[in-house]
């Protein structure tokens, strides 16, 4: 294994505390991933990345920074990567998915803030995540209230730019989002010193679309009756795609998709026939949050699709590539991004349509709607989701959890009972 200690030290990280984090990761990776049988060979790439998640990619980012490129850290699938890429910048995801960072966040945030926000703030302030150290600028967005206020805290510690996401989806909101994107582009040009031209933006749009198509291919393979990949592995792939170089991400996803499609032709499944298929919907599962997938998949079911930011919302809908002016391109970006259905919008019936459509496409036997604790928006939507699903005759289980291990048994009882119900 390469020695990254020097690099972490140079990043000003708290090495001693970071060591503790490095100690728990192999256990969780071992339990959640390595215990699975018959995994796709192409998962070797993601296994490698996760085994040195704080080493390999951060080292690459630092190399790029040495060449003068800027790294933008983002927290949300509404922030358009294309704009950053067009200015020769790099985007990396920053969401915290570990309980390890939560206490650090609770030091400055109320306890009843969602764990994702607490972990993200804790990761920055505790200096225990290289990505949070490397990013030259953080790009936030006005999605939920918790994040908005957390960005104010982070902004005291690091350059922070916040995009104003509309809360409704009328035509004027889409226009407004276009304006936000255009303004963001100016900021990015200023920060990187690189001009965003029509050609460069067109290239960036094509590149990100290509990544979306590759991710979609992997997901499409999961629609098969045959289950070629576990939900856990698909989730890992999805989580890491937020951090990876987009071209390599597309390449690796295509390589995985090749294997999965072959598996579907050969009838190679990772679970016995008849295993109940679960569509998971709700709040994002930031790396290394694997609790729910692991419990579902060790309780006799398999996750076939994630309707969440770390899932279909990240890749569904492409950006129109035909724009010939920046204005047209910004509008195309706005139209694509505004198709995402997040609970911060009102109304948000699109999400319910998505869930019903995905449940059908992925042949889900049941839906688990899970939100992170203290995420009011998704919690409130559970009622509408569950009513719509019941009406459609699709069993649904609503859950709430955080990053702690302590509720695992309770979750297990509910999930096992749900699976028993599906099996009856």
């Amino acid at each position: 294994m390469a020695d990254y200690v020097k690099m972490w030290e140079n990043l000003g990280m708290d090495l001693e505390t970071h060591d503790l984090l490095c100690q728990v990761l192999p256990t969780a990776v071992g339990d959640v991933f390595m215990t699975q049988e018959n995994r796709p060979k192409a998962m070797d790439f993601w296994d490698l990345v996760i085994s040195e998640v704080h080493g390999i990619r951060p080292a690459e980012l630092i190399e790029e920074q040495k060449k003068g490129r800027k790294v933008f850290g983002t927290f949300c699938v509404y922030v358009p990567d294309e704009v950053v890429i067009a200015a020769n910048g790099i985007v990396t995801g920053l969401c915290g998915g570990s309980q390890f960072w939560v206490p650090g966040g609770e030091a400055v945030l109320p306890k009843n803030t969602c764990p994702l926000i607490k972990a993200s703030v804790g990761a920055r302030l505790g200096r225990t995540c290289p990505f949070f150290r490397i990013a030259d600028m953080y790009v936030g967005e006005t999605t939920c209230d918790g994040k908005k206020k957390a960005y104010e805290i982070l902004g005291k510690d690091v350059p922070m730019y916040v995009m104003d996401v509309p809360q409704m989806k009328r035509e004027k909101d889409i226009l407004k989002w276009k304006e936000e994107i255009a303004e963001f582009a100016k900021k990015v040009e200023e920060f990187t010193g690189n001009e965003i031209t029509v050609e460069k933006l067109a290239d960036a749009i094509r590149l990100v679309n290509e990544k979306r198509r590759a991710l979609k291919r992997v997901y499409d393979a999961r629609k098969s009756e045959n289950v070629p990949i576990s939900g856990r592995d698909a989730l890992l792939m999805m989580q890491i795609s937020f951090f990876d170089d987009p071209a390599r991400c597309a390449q690796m996803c295509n390589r995985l998709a090749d294997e999965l499609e072959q598996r579907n032709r050969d009838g190679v499944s990772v679970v016995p026939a008849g295993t109940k298929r679960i569509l998971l919907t709700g709040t994002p599962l930031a790396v290394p949050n694997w609790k729910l997938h692991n419990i579902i998949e060790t309780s006799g079911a398999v996750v076939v699709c994630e309707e969440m930011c770390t899932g279909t919302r990240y890749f569904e809908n492409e950006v129109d590539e035909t724009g010939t002016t920046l204005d047209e391109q910004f509008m195309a970006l706005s139209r694509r991004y505004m198709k995402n259905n997040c609970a911060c919008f009102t109304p948000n019936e699109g999400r319910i349509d998505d869930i019903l459509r995905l449940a059908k496409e992925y042949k889900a036997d049941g839906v688990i709607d899970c939100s992170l604790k203290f995420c009011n928006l998704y919690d409130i939507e559970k009622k509408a989701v569950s009513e719509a699903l019941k009406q459609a005759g699709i069993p649904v289980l609503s859950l709430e959890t955080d990053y702690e291990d302590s509720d695992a048994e309770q979750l297990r009882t509910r999930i096992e009972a749900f699976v028993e119900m599906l099996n009856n």
Partner: protein
Amino acid sequence: MVRYYILFENYEQGLALHDLLDEAGVRNRIAPAPAAARGKLCCGMSLLVEEAELAAAKACIAAHGAVYYDIVGMENQLQPRRDRYC
């Protein structure tokens, strides 16, 4: 899930192969040799490799003529359901 333990007659052999595997980028780690696998000739340490890395480890051994006693597969006896996340 089966994991593979490379066994040795002494620590010198074990540490030598550990260095070789690391250099070759084959994931491995030092682990106590399983009691059930420990023949008369084995020492207390082994190198643990996952199934996916086994072929690479064997190739590395062959390429360097590294000395080892045996390679044995063993089921991990700890339950994956223990719910430890990070």
